[in-house]
């Protein structure tokens, strides 16, 4: 099993680097170009959230094996920013606290197969998403 790839996110240039790595790792893991683009788009949204809300953090790419031989790619977006007070609101389509389109997190949820978000009191946000190969 391939090792994790971690990309530090501190600026909008790192957003591009992260999604390009993500696409390459997805293609290597056997995803189609279409699926790799879905994953790259999700990474782009997650990495931009890090820059916009926490200034810095990281994106980790992790090829995974699921039950019954399923293979996939997990993306972990992690930061130690202020965190999200109302997760339900952040996951609602059209809601944005930054003047964006409000499609970021709900969009990422639609792009990927599994979606988990943790934002404990005291700060920091970790979004973990997985796409499985069909």
């Amino acid at each position: 099993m391939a090792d994790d790839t971690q990309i530090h996110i501190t600026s909008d240039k790192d957003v591009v680097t992260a999604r390009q790595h993500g696409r390459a790792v997805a293609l290597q893991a056997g995803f189609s170009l279409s699926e790799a683009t879905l994953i790259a788009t999700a990474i782009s949204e997650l990495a931009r959230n890090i820059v916009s809300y926490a200034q810095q953090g990281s994106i980790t790419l992790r090829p995974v094996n699921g039950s019954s031989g399923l293979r996939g790619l997990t993306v972990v977006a992690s930061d130690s920013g202020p965190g999200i007070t109302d997760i339900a609101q952040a996951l609602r389509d059209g809601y944005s606290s930054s003047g964006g389109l409000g499609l970021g997190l709900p969009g990422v949820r639609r792009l990927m197969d599994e979606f988990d978000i943790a934002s404990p009191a005291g700060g920091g946000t970790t979004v973990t998403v997985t796409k499985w190969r069909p």
Partner: protein
Amino acid sequence: MQVPILKQGGVLIATIQAALSDADLLELRNALVHQVVRYRSSGVIVDVTAMDVMDSFASRTLLEISHMIRLRGADTVIVGIQPEVAFAMVQLGLTLEDIPTALDLEEGLDYLQQKNSRSIN
């Protein structure tokens, strides 16, 4: 990564040649709006064939470009959205509803030409 903008008659053609950062996209928006004013252009084509990903920020910036240029009385056409990029955009919830799109540069030019001749007649 600067995006070259070519002037062909009354049309400006911006061809994105590599993945763009958010700052690059905003720079493109500002450059296009300035040049539309400077050259009194009637149309703008943004060729996104080389764009790897069209996320919410890129879509919002393209919408802004189109709206700003509309206020100058000119039209914007987006050309070259790759099939896999279109697939991801729809899943994300992005439709670029207000902006005309065309398959490639040639069809984009045709669109602007037709629109122009209609408005003259």
